[in-house]
């Protein structure tokens, strides 16, 4: 190609590419029909795969903890699971609600406990959410809610993040903390941290 034809050819290429690009469009797909659909990260928010990973880490730690021995020695103690507090730079409230429910499911299925649901306790949930918005969220407060719920143990959690940005990338490192508190004494009997990292690079 001679030099004088080069800009002309580029102009033609760009014009044709623009026309051709307008021919494709999005389409709805089903996860079960599209291998790997659930594996792709779509954003720096937490998705199902992240929640499954975080939950797996936390629940395995719980299974092998001293608390499990204690629960087995008791006669089906009652446990309540509080909403998980969001201390991150992402709007992940609905993902954290799903995580709370999944923790309940796991406890029901493998732990020697009876799980008392917060459903129907709207006033208490409102109070918990209101308190969780503030930083005054301590084991003694958690134990108080446990007494209101009529349970012996309370499982609570919070997610923090460190968020960094450069000219061409952004990385969010999440830390999910899960803890279990004795309602009677306010003592923290189990605590675990599960890390998850998401990025746009």
């Amino acid at each position, binding site marked *: 190609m001679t030099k*004088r034809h080069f800009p*002309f050819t*580029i102009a033609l290429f760009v014009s044709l590419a623009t026309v051709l690009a307008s021919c494709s469009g999005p389409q709805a797909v089903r996860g079960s029909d599209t291998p790997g659909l659930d594996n792709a990260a779509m954003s720096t928010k937490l998705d199902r795969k992240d929640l499954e990973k975080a939950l797996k880490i936390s629940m395995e730690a719980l299974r092998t903890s001293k608390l499990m021995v204690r629960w087995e020695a008791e006669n089906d103690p009652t446990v309540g699971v509080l909403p998980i507090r969001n201390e991150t*730079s*992402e709007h992940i*409230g609905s993902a954290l609600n799903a995580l709370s429910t999944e923790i309940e499911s796991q406890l029901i299925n493998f732990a020697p406990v009876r799980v008392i649901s917060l459903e129907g306790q709207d006033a208490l949930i409102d109070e918990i959410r209101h308190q969780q*918005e*503030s930083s005054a969220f301590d084991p003694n407060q958690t134990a108080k809610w446990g007494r209101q719920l009529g349970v012996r143990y309370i499982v609570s959690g919070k997610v923090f993040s460190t968020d960094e940005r450069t000219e061409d990338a952004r990385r969010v490192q999440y830390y999910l903390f899960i803890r279990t508190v004795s309602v009677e004494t306010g003592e923290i009997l189990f605590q675990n941290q599960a890390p998850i990292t998401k990025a*746009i690079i």
Partner: protein
Amino acid sequence: MPLRGDRLRVGLRLGLAAVVLVLLVPAAGCKTFSDRTAKTRSALDANNLDAALKSSNSALGVRGAGDTPAPLEKNDALLLLDRAMVLQALHEYAKSSHDFEVADKAIEILDFSRSTANEIAKYLFTDSAGPYKARPYEKLMLNSENMLNYLAAHNLEDAKVEARRFSIMRSYLLEDEKEDAKQIAAAGAFGSYLAGYAFEKAGDAEEALRYYDEVLQFEGVASLAAPVRALMKRSGYRTPRLEAIAKKARAPSEADAQSADVLVVINYGRIPAMVAKRIPVGAALTIGALFLSPANSRAARRMAGQGLVTWVNFPELGPSRPNYPTPGVSLSTGRQQVENIANIDAVARHAWDQSKGRVVAAAIVRMVTRGAIGAGVGVAAGQASGKGSVGMVTALVTQAALAAGDKPDTRSWATLPARIAVARFKLPPGSHQIDVNVGGRIYTSQITVAEGQWAVIDVTDLSNR
């Protein structure tokens, strides 16, 4: 068969020239971004929010405020920002937040991407060929205005999420040597004020003080004196600015402790939109000279000297309204003090003044490129036809078609308020009427507060009349 080969080449050249012209000439009729969004701004000027929402939806190509284009196309993120402001003015906070958050994510992705095809198109045709890259003040305002949505809806958890996002962006911009720290502080004062308020109400005194100190780095805000004094009793965080303003606070009375804390935030006026402008090439060379390479500068002067080009298309920030009367806030007990905490108009103008030379230089480079392409096509057509006159005419037509396709990049977030003011006061428990006067238009809010509660009232009036 050399003759046949020559004819084939001639045919190909003429065919390619025709294809380029056919593809480019329709671009001449395309509207610029500010043309496409003009109806929304006209409706806002008339204070007709329903019409503004309808125009916003129309620009996005969707039917209702709950609809979002999928997938987002080139300028949809910017159009969502426009609609988010209209929805905020309508007090549709959940929908406004949704638009802000979708736009925020899209802008983040666009920040990290620019394809080679976009770069080529930008180099040849127009600055608006590529995806929109938000300006620093726009990024800060996005999180700030969304924080206001959540605070007005009494949702501290999500307001704190926006506060954290705001901080990440503010820190990133301050670390960027290209950015003007003073302008970042000016653009961020409003966001820092709201972030401080969110953390104050969440009971995190230290975090609140850090944000309030950011506000005070920009300018003194008297309404922060009492809150800072109260917060300093609960945290050891100190700066000279915080200590100085705390000294100005009067001692709290018993009635203060029993009252509710009310913050009225007034977004008013509107920053100007970008407009397409044509200036003589000589004037353009004066503005963009510093940012042009010597070769491009010489080529542009040669083309201007030969009379091949006379005008350069480029975008310009429209004129600002000279002044806005400060809004008034009245209760049954009298008028409240109102403080202006952000002049977004001045921030936007400063940002444009800083980038104007580069934008004009880019327009000149495109003009030179078009000249080279036109000459190339003309030579090809002249050789193909064997007539120099055909080549000359083809060159001129090609240049004209390319010039007509050069749309100035008028993209900007032009529904941002020109000014932001706050009024902060205590109210005894009970029901109260709050009247806000923005340019003679009265916005009345009825609120009922209990002891120790807080409330944020948003008044967004984006009319420029």
